[in-house]
């Protein structure tokens, strides 16, 4: 029958290209990494990304179909779900900015305010970003890889160890690499407990790892309220291109710390960020089509991203070592690695490696300072890139 033939021609079995099949398997693999108790790699993002990956590679399902508009502006056939999500939330930058607001509303700057010097560790760890960017540019010049300067920058930002920043920058500078970059960023953030410790141990002596730090002072409510405003004003004066990311971050934090809009802060931390996370993940997945993901670039991105994490970690630790030598109060070099961000995983890693060296050594709160400084640092780096290429 005619309609039976149509159906067969519509079916996935008939239409499926090998690349799509491979990407559906990649999607299932990501699901496995997100869900299996042994991995659970940042499931909040990786699960929706994986589902989006499967969706966009189903031939004929039209998840990323463009809308058909007739001459009068009427919709003949609507676009696919992922098309709307990508164009409304990722191309516009809205989703990463809303995530940043929510993360701001969950962030406690207390440890950072008690020891503002640790901001410098958050600065140093950004060498992961720029070193990798330089590496990608150099390897392209050497003919080994083939990236543009914009692509190199978008890959470097993986080293910021901050998912929304990576997505924000990649969607602006290199949307064709967005899928691979986001997957690399979130996967390596989940792998921080495996990536960082060897580097931290290689760069520090046992004596250094045993260093106990003096207890952090209490930070007043007023300081916590004024800090995000100061940061926002500083961004406005010095680096406006970083203002969207850091502005929303400060806004979220101000909602939390001011204590006068608890219901807004609550919603920013829960319902709103959850909804946006679902859509952000699906939208990122929509960029995981076979032609964009199954190529040498993805492999290079995975390698360079890993490198970025390692370099950032090393730079943070070395900076902390240097600061320990110059500072009057002792600074355990292990907290330097937390400067890459990956909040709060990296701070926990610092704490754990510290405890291994000295069971009395609780570094968690000390590492939270550089940890949130790393978020600021990579947002500043993002601002530099936007200004450079804008």
């Amino acid at each position, binding site marked *: 029958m005619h309609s039976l033939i149509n159906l067969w021609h519509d079916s996935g079995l008939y239409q499926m290209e090998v690349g799509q099949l491979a990407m559906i398997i990649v999607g299932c693999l990501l699901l496995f990494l997100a869900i299996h108790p042994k991995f659970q790699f940042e499931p909040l993002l990786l699960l929706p990304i994986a589902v989006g990956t499967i969706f966009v590679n189903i031939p004929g399902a039209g998840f990323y179909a463009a809308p058909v508009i007739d001459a009068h502006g009427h919709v003949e056939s609507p676009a696919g779900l992922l098309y709307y999500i990508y164009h409304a939330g990722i191309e516009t930058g809205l989703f990463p900015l809303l995530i940043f607001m929510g993360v701001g509303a969950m962030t406690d700057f207390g440890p*950072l*305010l008690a020891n*503002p*010097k640790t*901001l*410098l560790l*958050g*600065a140093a760890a*950004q*060498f992961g*970003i*720029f*070193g990798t*960017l*330089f*590496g*990608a*540019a*150099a390897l*392209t*010049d050497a003919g080994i890889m083939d990236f543009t*300067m914009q692509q*190199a*920058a978008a890959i470097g930002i993986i080293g910021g160890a901050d998912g929304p920043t990576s997505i924000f920058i990649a969607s602006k500078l290199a949307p064709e690499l967005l899928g691979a970059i986001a997957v690399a960023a979130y996967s390596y953030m989940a792998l921080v407990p495996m990536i960082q410790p060897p580097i931290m141990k290689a760069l520090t002596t046992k004596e250094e790892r045993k260093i106990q730090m003096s207890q952090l002072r*209490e*930070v*007043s*409510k*007023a*300081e916590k309220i*004024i*800090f995000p405003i*100061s*940061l926002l004003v*500083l961004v406005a004066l*010095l*680096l406006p291109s970083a203002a969207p990311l850091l502005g929303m971050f400060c806004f979220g934090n101000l909602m939390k710390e001011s204590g006068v809009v608890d219901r807004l802060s609550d919603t920013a931390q829960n319902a709103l960020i959850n909804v946006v996370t679902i859509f952000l993940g699906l939208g990122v997945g929509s960029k995981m089509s076979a032609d964009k993901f199954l190529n040498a670039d993805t492999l290079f991105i995975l390698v360079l991203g890993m490198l970025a994490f390692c370099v950032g970690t090393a730079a943070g630790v070395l900076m902390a070592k240097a600061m320990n030598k110059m500072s009057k109060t002792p600074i355990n070099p292990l907290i330097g690695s937390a400067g890459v961000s990956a909040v709060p995983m990296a701070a926990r890693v610092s704490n754990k490696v510290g405890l291994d060296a000295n069971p009395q050594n609780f570094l968690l709160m000390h590492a939270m300072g550089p940890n949130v*400084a790393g978020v*600021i*640092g990579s947002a*500043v*780096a993002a601002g*530099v*890139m936007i200004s*450079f290429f804008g």
Partner: protein
Amino acid sequence: MSETSLVAQGLELMIFGMGVVFVFLTMLVFVTGFMSKLVNKFAPEPQPVPAPARAAAPQGVDPQLLKVLSAAVKEHRARQK
């Protein structure tokens, strides 16, 4: 920009970027320190607010219930005597 090699551009962006990051965060160190000093000078916190009720009962333990509970405890103690 079309003239310079990618590696030169990369080097420039690296030096320039790390420079900006360090300058910005160093300024933030000073601004933060200055701000903290001002706050603690002009608006020292009377006492570290304990705010135990709020911390302990972030959402949903309603005062009604606590009332019921403490009443029950009181009654219990009264009977115990």
